[in-house]
């Protein structure tokens, strides 16, 4: 039996807060996989944080001709990967750089507040892949294949809010912006 709040909204919908678009992209993600000789690779997150995303691009005539992703993460992270790769495909480099975490979340019909953090990786991974492509084009030193990719997190060693993604100025138990419990990095 599904319980409702009397307005036709099931409690499960209220609790889960994953939109239909998110669930559709989660169940049938687009652009999964790897590619031979990508022109740019961007990897963000790490398994310790619960999410890791890798985006590979092929560029032709300054446009993203092909794009693939691999993701370790929750439902939101997978849906974000699928959506951000869809959005970037066929776009010029300039246009793709204008895709933001927010625009990805908006295209997904919104994300639950406490999922903004783990889903912020999407545009970060895309931008990193583009940066990698630009670096290679300019002949900058390329990363060794075995080199560990750095963990990009604006929250590294900071106390931050997992709900609104705000970096706290100091160690506090509750977010100074939205009042929800924060994640402190120095102890449990």
């Amino acid at each position, binding site marked *: 039996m599904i319980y409702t709040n009397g307005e036709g909204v099931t409690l499960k919908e209220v609790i889960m807060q994953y939109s239909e678009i998110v*669930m559709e992209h989660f169940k049938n993600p687009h652009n999964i996989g790897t590619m031979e000789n990508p022109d740019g690779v961007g*990897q963000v997150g790490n398994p310790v944080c619960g999410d890791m*995303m890798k985006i590979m691009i092929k560029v032709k005539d300054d446009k993203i001709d092909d794009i693939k992703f691999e993701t*370790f993460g929750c*439902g939101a992270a997978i849906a974000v990967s699928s959506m951000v790769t869809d959005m970037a495909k066929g776009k010029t480099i300039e246009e793709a750089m204008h895709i933001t975490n927010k625009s990805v979340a908006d295209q997904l019909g919104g994300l639950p507040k406490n999922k903004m*953090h783990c889903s912020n990786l999407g545009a970060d991974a895309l931008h990193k892949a583009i940066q990698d492509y630009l670096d290679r084009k300019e002949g900058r030193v390329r990363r060794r294949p075995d080199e560990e990719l750095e963990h990009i997190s604006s929250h590294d060693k900071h106390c931050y809010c997992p709900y609104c993604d705000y970096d706290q100025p100091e160690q506090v138990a509750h977010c100074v912006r939205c009042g929800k419990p924060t*994640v402190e990095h120095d102890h449990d």
Partner: protein
Amino acid sequence: METIYFDHISGTTIHPEVKKTMINYINEHYGNPVSQHQLGDAASAALEAARQQVARLINAQPGEIVFTSGGTESVNHAIKGVAMATHDKGKHIITSNIEHQSVSKSLRMLMRMGYRVTSLSVDKYGVVNPKDVERAITKETVLVTIMHANNEIGTLEPIAEIGKITREKGVIFHTDAIASVGVIPFDVDEMGADLVSMAANQFYGPSGVGALYIRPKTRILPIIEGGMQENGQRAGSENMVGIIGMGKAAELAKREMPERIKHLSQLRQAWIERLTTIEAIDINGHPTNCLPHLVSFSVNFVEGESMILMLDEKGICASTRSACASGSLRASHVLIATGCDYAAAQGTLIFSFGITNTMEELDKAIAVLKDSVVFLRNMSPLYKKRAAS
């Protein structure tokens, strides 16, 4: 779509006989047990009968049982109630690293008020060493609080040994036995516990009702003040329907326990055997000294919440402790305390079985789990990395 429920540790189904008893009660009774008239007397008699049923389940006397609003309240009562009653003796409490949040957060609050808390580490199975408890006790120690069965990995703690130590040292001992009472035998005298927290929704009773066992002469104050209900230990009109349900559930649990344990152990064993057909899965917790109905396992290279979503799509209800699925976005403190790798902790699922589950349900679930794991590993950079190396 058929629903397969493997999340009994979050709350069991309600036994049909319990349901019937509760409905009968609510149809016929509405008196308040404290009232001095016939309706009050009827309610009072029903209340005391339920108290006796719960007492029998743990080999206690009815007068030692205080009904609460559930396991969390019982734990809060035990910890804060003892602290308030003994603050003149000392301000040191001993606990473990794998307790439920109702314990750890109650202690955190006391720490803000100047209490010192020693939190003991556990071995790789999540077992506390009783010798560590003995070493940690000081003249200032007023309470030892260690859980009986861990709700995430199912490991049983050496409560009887710890109880012996606390008795010798004259320290009050509380055990959070919420995951075990009603599931496996629990005897308050054998365990040597002064305070025992329990909840009806772990043994086919309703949610929102629990009990705290209080050994006579234990120094403890109520945390909810008001009328003289529950022997002065818990004010407020009783949740009669819930309590009646808990009593019936306790009676059934005591009577049916051997058969239930046999059935649940078979399911547990069968599930572990089925899990071995998927590569790179680790089983967490103690392999033998554990709850009969719970399996915690880590599926390497994938994340827990995405597996739960896929299982749920196919009607299978289970639980995860991945950081992403938790409100706090932290990996399970229990798994980390047992030395589990952070990445593996993210892919941890908890399957907890109930008396109505069947082998056929396990077969359906393993097929769905396999598909989900293949699907998610196929897109996991960690899995690809491993395959390449």
